[in-house]
């Protein structure tokens, strides 16, 4: 088909072209003349005029004054004119509701036109006006549209229902459109009608579900076996986008037996070869989610989907590669082992954009193991000389990360040290930071590293992070580096030129360390550093200088122990993302969450979240053990809980830092360890670091203890007894939940029979009541249940335990967060709670 050649008719307006009023009034005149005319060729002249109007509208000239003339001219059977008129009306109606009323009449008339195209277009325009006071005129035409004999009109109407819902939810529900959509979805012969019905229903029910029990049930019904099977069996009739929609529906379906899982996978097997990458990804999501509970099959699925994914990466546009790679990245991070032999697929190609390269580098890092490290590191070292500086930096970091993961780092250390010889500023900078981390983990390599690092002139290192790393090494290994005191002295002389407070802080610490190792040589430098630090305008630098000064005054041997404690090597560097967050991202496979590497609640405004998000599930919580129609408290929970989620993740991060710093006082963490300790004293809250003995508030505030040097062990608490008839009103629960920090967060797997018995939340509630654990709110549908429990100490009525418990009955995973008035007893409570939960389902 030849492209319509319009260029000679539509003027191509440049910004300097007419914007004057005369031009518009001229148009107005001409339109008026044509409005009544029935002469031959009128439509053609009208078209030209309409095109002019549309062009003006598009380049931002206000042509709303032509509204009535445009409407008058729209009395025509010419579909092109109609379309342009609808476009014009749609653009200006929202701003001028009065004018919109004018158009309703002719749009309604067009909805009864004999040409199905016109009926469809008019209906779409009518629904797109988005003017709330015109809703009453929508219902009639929509109802007719859904029953129209032509599929095009029905497709438009199915989407129109959703548009109506967003303008006025009550009008849409009252007209019983959702049930009509459902009927249409199951019976219509046209696939696109079915697809649009499905989109609309999903959107409507999930928005309604927070306020109506029935809607929640309907939403579940969309995932019922008959509906899912009915649509899946027809999947090949649908176009590619509709297939994505259906596959997404299927990925949320929970089969009741394992045969079903295989049936569905067999049915969808060929979708993995589809030309459209989005269909392939959607299919992969179905496969992955269906097999979550079957470990072996799940692994086989990984093997099966690898080839299609890798093909997609190399075949499509860079943008598509990026989207696919992000998903591959997620899978690689979950199971690096499975991809270790495919490392060559993740080599960067010269022509790829840097966002693709970055992802590939991360994956190469993740899959490096004993068998492929040599090849991967060799490849990465090539990239270090890349012209793209950010990629060069990333590759050096990747080499460093691999070194930190491996047991045999000999060769890698050599390569890193070779980087230092390249004498490029950014390469040196990145490498220094890495060498510092390596030394923290493998102190045994200090000899080789120090020899090379000692040759670097501090003048060539300008980036604060790199400079700090160098200074840290100078301080830490000052006994092995002949020049250390003099280099430090030199740096201190230029104190005022050093802009980064981070560097100045490290300088203070390094010179202290050096002083205790080589006092005569450093004595002068230390004095100068402390003097400069005390006069420093930066608060932290000043405070640290003062702290060191007083420490030295108090007792030098204590000071030595504070500054140069014996250190253990760091075994594992902290992972910044909790497994809960990672799992949630996996649940949201094939969405933006994977690209951002964040669960959707972190980047989507609340009112725009889709179903399946936690906020939705919480919306279904019912207060008390039986459903109560009072929905207000549940909504407050929802708001409350989202804040909690965020604060938890922050807390986890800080906790990780705490554990890190007490294991080994390293450059970045010096300041944070001090501040954390001081807050610990003020709040008197036990700083419970997993894996480390709890900080005991009663212990002396001896500085050694504060820095985690002397380890104090908490005495074993007396056995915990729970009050069998604990009482707590929802308001107090909520207040406490907001006030208390999480004292314990655990994950474990439930017994299969327990999961089997968990068909409704109520079953578990009664069971837990028998174990002196009361439920205050519960909700969710299979497989995701959510409970809020509480319990009370038998001997101490004011001491409560609050529990948030998430159970996924398909994966049998339970996530528990405990908050307690008496944080010290939460471990004991956890033991009780876990044993209570694992008794569930026993006869």
């Amino acid at each position, binding site marked *: *088909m030849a*492209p*319509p050649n*319009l*260029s000679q008719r*539509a003027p*191509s307006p440049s910004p300097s072209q007419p914007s004057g009023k005369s031009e518009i009034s001229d148009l107005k005149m001409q339109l008026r003349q044509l409005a009544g005319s029935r002469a031959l060729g009128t439509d*053609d002249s009208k*078209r030209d005029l309409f*095109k002019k109007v*549309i*062009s003006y509208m*598009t380049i931002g000239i206000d042509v709303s004054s032509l509204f009535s003339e445009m409407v008058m001219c729209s009395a025509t059977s010419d*579909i*092109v004119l109609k*379309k*342009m008129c609808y*476009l014009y009306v749609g653009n200006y109606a*929202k701003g001028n509701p009065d004018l919109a009323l004018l158009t309703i009449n002719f749009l309604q008339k067009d909805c009864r036109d004999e*040409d199905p*195209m016109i009926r469809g277009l008019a209906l*779409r325009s009518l629904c797109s006006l*988005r003017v709330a006071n015109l809703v009453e005129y929508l219902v009639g035409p929509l109802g007719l549209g859904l029953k129209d004999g*032509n*599929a095009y009109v029905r497709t438009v109407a199915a*989407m129109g229902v*959703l*548009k109506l819902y967003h303008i006025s939810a009550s009008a849409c529900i009252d007209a019983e459109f959702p049930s009509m959509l459902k009927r249409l979805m199951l019976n219509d012969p046209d*696939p696109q009608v079915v697809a*649009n019905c499905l989109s609309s229903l999903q*959107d409507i029910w*999930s928005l309604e579900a927070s306020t109506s029990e029935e809607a929640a049930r309907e939403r579940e019904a969309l995932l019922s076996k008959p509906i899912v099977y009915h649509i899946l069996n027809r999947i090949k009739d649908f*176009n590619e*986008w509709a297939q994505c*929609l259906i596959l*997404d529906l299927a990925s949320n379906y929970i089969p009741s037996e394992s045969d079903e899982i295989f049936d569905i996978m067999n049915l969808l097997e060929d979708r993995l070869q589809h030309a459209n*990458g*989005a269909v392939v*990804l*959607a299919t992969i999501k179905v496969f992955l989610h269906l097999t979550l509970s079957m470990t072996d099959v799940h692994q086989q699925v990984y093997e099966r989907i690898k080839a299609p994914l890798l*093909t997609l990466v190399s075949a499509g*546009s860079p*943008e*598509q590669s*990026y*989207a696919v790679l992000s998903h591959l990245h997620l899978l690689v991070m979950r199971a690096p082992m499975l991809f270790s032999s495919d490392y*060559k*697929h993740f*080599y960067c190609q010269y022509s790829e954009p840097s*966002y693709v390269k970055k992802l590939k580098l991360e994956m190469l890092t993740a899959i490096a193991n004993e068998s492929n490290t040599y090849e991967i590191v060799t490849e990465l070292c090539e990239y270090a000389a890349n012209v793209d500086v950010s990629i060069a930096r990333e590759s050096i970091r990747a080499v460093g990360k691999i070194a930190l993961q491996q047991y045999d780092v000999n060769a890698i250390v050599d390569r890193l040290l070779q980087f230092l010889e390249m004498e490029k500023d950014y390469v040196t900078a990145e490498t220094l930071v890495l060498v510092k981390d390596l030394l923290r983990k493998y102190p045994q390599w200090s000899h080789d590293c120090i020899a090379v690092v000692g040759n670097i002139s501090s003048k060539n290192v300008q980036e604060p992070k790199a400079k700090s790393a160098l200074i840290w090494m100078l301080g830490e290994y000052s006994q092995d580096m002949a020049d250390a005191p003099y280099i430090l002295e030199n740096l201190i002389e230029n104190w005022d030129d050093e802009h980064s407070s981070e560097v100045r802080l490290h300088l203070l610490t390094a010179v202290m360390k050096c002083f205790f190792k080589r006092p005569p040589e450093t004595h002068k430098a230390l004095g100068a550093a402390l003097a400069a630090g005390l006069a420093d305008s930066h608060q932290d630098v000043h405070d640290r200088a003062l702290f060191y000064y007083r420490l030295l005054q108090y007792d030098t041997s204590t000071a030595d122990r504070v500054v140069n404690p014996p250190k253990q090597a760091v075994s594992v560097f902290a992972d910044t993302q909790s497994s809960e967050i990672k799992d949630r991202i996996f649940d*949201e496979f*094939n*969405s*933006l969450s994977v690209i*951002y590497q964040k669960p959707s609640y972190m*980047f*989507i*405004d609340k009112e*725009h*979240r889709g179903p399946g998000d936690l906020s939705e599930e919480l919306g279904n919580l019912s207060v008390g053990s039986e459903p109560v129609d009072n929905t207000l408290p549940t909504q407050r929970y929802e708001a409350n809980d989202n804040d909690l989620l965020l604060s938890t993740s922050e807390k986890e991060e800080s906790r990780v830092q705490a554990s890190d710093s007490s294991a080994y006082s390293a450059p970045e963490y010096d300041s944070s360890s001090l501040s954390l300790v001081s807050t610990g004293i003020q709040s008197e809250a036990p700083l419970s670091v997993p894996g480390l003995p709890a900080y005991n508030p009663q212990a002396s505030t001896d500085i050694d203890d504060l820095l985690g040097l002397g380890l104090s062990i908490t005495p074993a608490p007396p056995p915990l007894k729970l009050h069998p008839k604990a009482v707590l009103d929802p308001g107090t629960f909520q207040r406490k939940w907001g006030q208390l920090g999480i004292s314990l967060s655990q994950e474990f797997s439930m017994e299969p029979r327990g999961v089997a018995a968990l068909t409704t939340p109520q079953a578990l509630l009664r069971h837990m009541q028998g174990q002196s654990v009361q439920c205050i709110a519960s909700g969710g549908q299979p497989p995701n249940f959510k409970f809020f429990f509480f319990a009370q100490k038998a001997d101490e009525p004011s001491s409560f335990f609050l529990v948030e418990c998430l159970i996924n009955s398909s994966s049998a995973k339970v996530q528990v967060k405990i908050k307690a008035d008496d944080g010290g007893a939460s471990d004991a409570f956890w033991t009780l709670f876990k044993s209570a939960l694992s008794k569930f389902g026993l006869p």
Partner: protein
Amino acid sequence: MAGAVSALFLLDIKGRVLVWRDYRGDVSAVQAERFFTKLIEKEGDPESQDPVVYDNGVTYMFIQHNNVFLMTASRQNCNAASILLFLHRVVDVFKHYFEELEEESLRDNFVVVYELLDEIMDFGYPQYTEAKILSEFIKTDAYRMEVTQRPPMAVTNAVSWRSEGIRYKKNEVFLDVVESVNILVNSNGQIIRSDVVGALKMRTYLSPKGKVN
């Protein structure tokens, strides 16, 4: 549920809006400007930017074609892979109509662009992106007006890319195999990686519609 797109923008190389279509009414044209400032804020040229940009609750996904940016804005957690692919399909559709997609061809064809944008997506959900199907909806060419009275073929036809009632005198199928070989050799002459990417292109002149086994 895959999230829906709020609006589709066509921007020129400087980030000015050429044409945009508002599907859900929850973003405004100002958003496009914010997107572009955000893009420029990051250093480097826009071509090396991630195709997914986040700003203040709105996700922008974009691709560049010649001197035109095609960009979607969305407030929901939508299916990134499918939207990016969709944008490429939109480019294909435009190319089908204007031979080449660039600023000038868009400016010359505002009306067709609007019509296309109206049919490829409804309320933020992708609808039809096959140029052949769309040509049934898009009737701006006056000459083709006379044949428009029959309903669009997609609605009567399960095979979305084929009109009904096509008959050929000679039943033929042409099959092209297009393969490209990629090879990566390091400085020592060793082959680091090699692969073949292939595509099958088929042109059918078969009269009855149906499956070919």
